[in-house]
């Protein structure tokens, strides 16, 4: 009996390591598997129920693009350990001002540049003010969310008609295609992947998010890096604002109102850690945005009503965050 106990107690370290590596790899591809499952479920049930797959996919790409643009930019912020609650209101202000310039000049290029410029400016303003007042950036973004919301209302009531700003359909029509949206998201994603994985920047951001004090002692200028992160996020917000205007040329106070929440859900679904740091993944936003859009489309087959979808997404969000937290709990005793 004693000999048997002894045999069971002695372990093979190589086998354990192999097992742990396999487990780690499986965990890392779970978001991709989830996305593929949701896509498959949608395609199967949409075919069975006789829905048009082509139209469905166009809607999915359109929804996913908007969320992915914002969420991909926000990944820079999250990675460096910050948080921005004003993304949605920033996007609205950028879209409104971009729309005004587009209408006034009849130029898509100026509309695009204005949207990006305003979004970057507002985003940088958040981080700069936080730096000036020495406040945590997310505190500043709570304040600025209200401020930008008020600015949007002011623009709509003073410069709009019936609290709406309309961009001529003829101006945006040529770009209101799925291909344009695909090019937009692929281009921005590639840029972000390059910045994140090929430049020093990404490594520094991850380290800053992982341990700010150690990052400081490692020569990383945290304030400068935070401002850069917000500026890069601003580019994504500006592109999303432009894309939203192209898609829906009549802008009101409710335009893009769900983007802030959807961005968070997309990041979590894509496997991004909310605390940022070294385990952050730049592609998580894109993956999560598509998972979420497939989920929306799948559920729309069976039920109608956005309230229902929001509840389901909310519940799934909590479950995924719970599972991530369980996985991140320190399992190893400090020795």
């Amino acid at each position, binding site marked *: 009996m004693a000999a048997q106990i002894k045999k069971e107690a002695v*372990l093979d370290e190589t086998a354990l390591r192999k097992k742990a590596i396999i487990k780690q790899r499986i965990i890392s591809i779970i978001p991709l598997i989830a996305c593929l499952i949701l896509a498959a479920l949608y395609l199967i049930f949409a075919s069975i129920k006789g829905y048009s797959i082509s139209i469905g996919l166009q809607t999915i790409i359109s929804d996913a693009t908007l969320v992915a643009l914002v969420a991909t930019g926000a990944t820079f912020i999250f990675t460096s350990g910050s948080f921005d609650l004003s993304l949605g209101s920033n996007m609205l202000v950028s879209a409104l001002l971009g729309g005004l310039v587009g209408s006034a000049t009849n130029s898509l290029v100026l509309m695009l540049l204005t949207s990006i410029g305003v979004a970057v400016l507002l985003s940088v303003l958040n981080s700069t003010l936080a730096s000036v007042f020495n406040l945590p950036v997310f505190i500043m973004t709570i304040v600025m969310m209200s401020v930008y919301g008020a600015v949007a209302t002011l623009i709509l009531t003073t410069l709009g008609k019936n609290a709406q700003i309309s961009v001529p359909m003829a101006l945006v029509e040529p770009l209101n295609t799925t291909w344009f949206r695909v090019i937009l998201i692929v281009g921005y994603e590639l840029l972000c992947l390059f910045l994140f994985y090929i430049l020093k920047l990404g490594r520094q951001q991850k380290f800053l998010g992982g341990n700010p004090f150690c990052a400081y002692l490692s020569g990383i200028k945290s304030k400068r890096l935070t401002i850069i992160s917000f500026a890069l996020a601003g580019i994504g917000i500006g592109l999303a604002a432009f894309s939203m205007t192209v898609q829906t040329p009549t802008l009101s106070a409710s335009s893009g109102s769900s983007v802030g929440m959807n961005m968070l859900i997309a990041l979590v679904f894509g496997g991004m850690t909310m605390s940022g740091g070294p385990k952050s993944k730049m592609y998580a936003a894109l993956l999560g945005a598509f998972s979420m859009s497939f989920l929306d489309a799948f559920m729309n087959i069976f039920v109608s009503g956005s309230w229902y979808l929001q509840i389901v997404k909310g519940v799934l969000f909590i479950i995924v965050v719970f599972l991530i937290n369980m996985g991140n709990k320190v399992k190893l005793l400090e020795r």
Partner: protein
Amino acid sequence: MDSGLQERVRGEVIMQINHMRKTFGPTIALNDVDLTVKRGEIRGLIGENGSGKSTITSIFSGMQGCDYGEMFYKGEPWNPKSMKWASDHGVGMIVQESGTVPGITVAENMFLCDTDRFAKGKLFVNNAALMKAAQAALDDIGAGHIKANRITGTLDMMDRKLVEVAKVWMKNPEIIVVDETTTSLSQIGRDIIYGLMTRMKESNRSVVFISHDLDEIMEKCDTLTVLRDGKIIRTFEKEEFDPDAIRTSMIGRELQGDYYRSDWDGSYGEKVVLELKDVSLRDQARNVNIQAHEGEILGIGGLSGCGMHTIGKIMYGAVKPEKGKVFVRGKELKNPTQAMKNHIGYVAKDRDIESLCTHASITDNIAIGGLDKIAVGRHFILRKNEKKYVKKHSEFMKVKCFSTSQPVSELSGGNKQKVVFAKWIGRDSEILILDCPTRGIDIGVKQTMYQLMYAMKREGKTIIMISEEMTELMGMADRLIIMKDGTVTKEFPRSQDLSDAEIIKYMV
């Protein structure tokens, strides 16, 4: 109790562990471990970092469970539900790292899960009674200088540790585990722990004492168990204690070569590379003037609150002095970024908080110090170059890992410190500020660190070694500066005749 009965009680087994196994992912922390501790025994546990000492005691103390095996306490099966549960039933543990909550009072920390004892009605706590009980417990262990109403975060590391000691002691434990606690204490704190250990032994209770300090463990323990790679290697009885045999058991081979440096030549270059001029900062530095030279190992010693750790941070530009300046090769130094550009490296005392991002991989932690070395065209980091850089320096430091993508949190203390060294050595640091570089590190890694410092000195590099361990300062430094209350009280040149007693006069 008559002496015969006392003797019988003394021999009773109080703690027994059979065939214990514990894994953390791919790491085998304990592999078929048996351990028996008797009443009235002070049992030492010694071994390299990662050998499983803390794991075995933490399982017995209810901090975590095991994968396999059985435990007995006073002859009964023992399956603690939590640390508090174990503590309530007579098994207390003083942990290696900080075990207090910084934002609450000392008294609240001590009765963190026991405030019901001081309930006033259903909603309120009798604060006066809480304070009184906590102060009595602090007084009982000889730490009456700590006031129970102080906010714990305002205490220094030693006093915080003593609060933990009092917290464990006041439960009147039958077994106390002292896990690598003495390294964070000055002599006064150590004496308090030693006194408690003696009281435990005299009252037929038991102590499991974990330490890397061989002299200390040999002096205080009755028996000594050596662990290596999660296995029990040998248990030595008091009469078998032999430092060489214990060291050999610990590292699995004889310790070759010098431990500290062998020469007593305290010469160094004339060129001043780092200088503090009239530096002052609250009670941590009072008009401090220090010069470090090319090819010098400069030792800075003192009690833990003497200001030497702050001086280390000031030297690196991480803390700005209220008065005075820091110069590197004649140029003023203002922040860590400038320090790095001037080839200064800094190994902080608090390794997990200040020197490492523990959730990040070995690669991330080593590469972050050398991004400018790895970068192509200043900004581009090619994964191939990064891997090559990390591989070179982790192999040079002999970091024990199964892959450099392994998170640092999975490494032992000694291997974590090797990663920190690799980070700074990789970027060719010419001035290395080392704050307690061997804290909590086993003998084999210590020797590696000492020899590395000596090799760097011979290459003309400068080492500033801040330490609370006088023996290592005397063994390594060309020049030794002693600090007390933020001032430099004495400077000693390297000498074989220098004694602890002579140095301590200027520290206390």
